[in-house]
């Protein structure tokens, strides 16, 4: 019993990070109908940047906000400069651009920071809390709290701010949005910035657990895609929920299905993506109508 509870806790904690990245993926998708293959690599850049700042002696309280703001800026710049030229041409061109970003950012990170993996101490310290027989590490508690705060903030942004409302308007009907003085291009850049920041946080929360390497976000990106598939790509809330579900599912599978230990846990998101697209492509919590081309 304790064992299952412990696995559940681990799964939930891991799932929160996937939820963060899935939220980022979904924020971009709901705005543009685009799957950003490079979302994970953008998070890797954030993690390495934070690591460099830490190495230069910055305390986490200063480094983290700077890195998150930088990630947002990176997202906006990538959208305005590299994605914009193919906007409105075809979904294939768009997705190919993000594939190029994935390839390029992955290469650049390795070129700049090298390919040797680095370990990174948790900014939350190495302590742990015991609840009965279940152990909660400070890293788990801290990352869950941070991701939860980010999610609530994003939810409030879309729900209560004019900017959030305008972004939704552009996603639903760009033609009408223009007639209300809204510039769709600018909203897309804001969406990428938001996704960059959220993904960056996910990257920062992943690094202490899996270590820093150019490949560190490949697994989480797959998890995030599966989560977004599960929750509906156009539904940020559903995607985030999907992330938590996936965290639990993967941890449980890795522990209790003998063939799926270690790296092979990635079979789970692959299977989820495959099955969801086969059976209910709008996602389990999503609505069919919002999947745009």
């Amino acid at each position, binding site marked *: 019993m304790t064992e299952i509870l412990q696995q559940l806790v681990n799964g939930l904690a891991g799932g929160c990070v996937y939820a963060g990245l899935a939220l980022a993926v979904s924020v971009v998708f709901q705005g543009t109908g685009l799957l950003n293959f490079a979302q994970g690599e953008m998070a890797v850049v954030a993690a390495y940047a934070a690591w460099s700042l830490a190495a230069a002696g910055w305390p986490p309280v200063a480094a983290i906000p700077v890195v998150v703001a930088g990630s947002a800026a990176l997202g906006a710049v990538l959208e305005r400069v590299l994605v914009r030229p*193919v906007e409105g041409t075809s979904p294939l061109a768009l997705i190919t651009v993000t*594939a190029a970003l994935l390839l390029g950012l992955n290469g*650049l990170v390795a070129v700049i920071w090298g390919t040797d993996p680095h370990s990174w101490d948790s900014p939350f310290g190495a302590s742990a809390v015991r609840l009965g027989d279940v152990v909660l590490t400070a890293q788990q508690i801290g990352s869950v709290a941070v991701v939860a705060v980010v999610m609530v903030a994003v939810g409030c942004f879309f729900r209560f701010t004019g900017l959030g409302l305008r972004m939704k308007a552009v996603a639903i009907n760009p033609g009408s949005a223009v007639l209300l003085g809204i510039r769709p291009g600018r909203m897309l850049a804001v969406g990428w910035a938001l996704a960059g920041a959220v993904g960056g946080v996910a990257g920062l929360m992943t690094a202490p657990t899996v270590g820093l390497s150019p490949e560190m976000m490949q697994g989480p990106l797959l998890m995030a895609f599966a989560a977004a598939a599960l929750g509906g790509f156009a539904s940020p809330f559903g995607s985030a929920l999907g992330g938590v579900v996936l965290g639990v599912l993967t941890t449980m599978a890795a522990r209790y299905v003998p063939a799926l230990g270690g790296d092979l846990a990635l079979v789970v998101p692959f299977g989820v993506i495959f099955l969801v697209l086969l059976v209910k492509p709008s996602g389990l919590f999503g609505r069919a109508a919002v999947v745009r081309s």
Partner: protein
Amino acid sequence: MRKWLLWGVVAVAGIALPYILDDYQTFQIARVTTTALPIASLVLLTGWSGQVSAGQGALFGLGAYTCAIAIVSGGLPWPVAVLLAMVVGLAAGLLLGLPALRLSGMSLGLITLSLAVLFPLLLSRFKDLTGGPFGIQTPPVRTPAGIQLSSAQFLYLVTFVALAAVFALLALLCRGRTGRALDALRLQPAMARTTGVDTRRLSVLVVGMSGAVAALGGALNALVLQSVVPDAYAFTFSLALLTGAVIGGIRSWAGALVGAVFVVYVPQLVSDTVGDTLAGHWTQVGYALVLLLTLYFAPQGLAGLGSRITTKIGERRAHQNFAP
């Protein structure tokens, strides 16, 4: 007319090359012909049916491993192993194609990207079968008795004939009724459905065929290299193939050849320039740059650019490539 002439010249040149080049150079161009196959499979898939694959390298790798395992562990003669690889590629493609056609061609991109990330992990996991990180060495292909060719020359000609056959088949397929159905599928999936094209079946079949072609390329490539290792089929290789397809011209069979030259020679060029340690990563950066520039300035690819300069036909085609 002019086009046929051009292809004739290419065919003659292709057959003549091994007699002019030495064995090492022949080996190199055999790498090009075998790499052109998965790129051609992308031309069919993306350029004609409008679905992106970010995992063609995994299907290529699947063909390579199937062939190597069939020869080394199964003791099968190489032609049978190659056929088997194609069948396995076809089956994998059909399976991957099942959930396709959702999310406007992106779903295949998503599934194949996941496959591309997963495939190398599967390889290292099933060590007993795949040889783990060291892979499998395959015996050299011997020239059949009675033919006066070196083994490299013979193998190259085999790959060349396979490539020519695939090009011819695919070009024929994309010409007639199926071609029009593919156009409908790519340009107006919703409409295609209402006009009686069985879009689901068609798109699954196309993904299956492209799987078979990619696997054929992988199998022949394994024979040429005489080895398979997991590192060769990392997900970045899948994206390299996509890069090659876009650079060459996503709707051009000739472009597939151009793209293959690019994918085979650029990494060497880069590693000659920056040294071995970071060559792979600089290559990635280079691919990304060239890919972006192609998408912005020549969405019809180099082949399209060439044909636009030499003939006017290119102009008509330029709009069809990445425009929806």
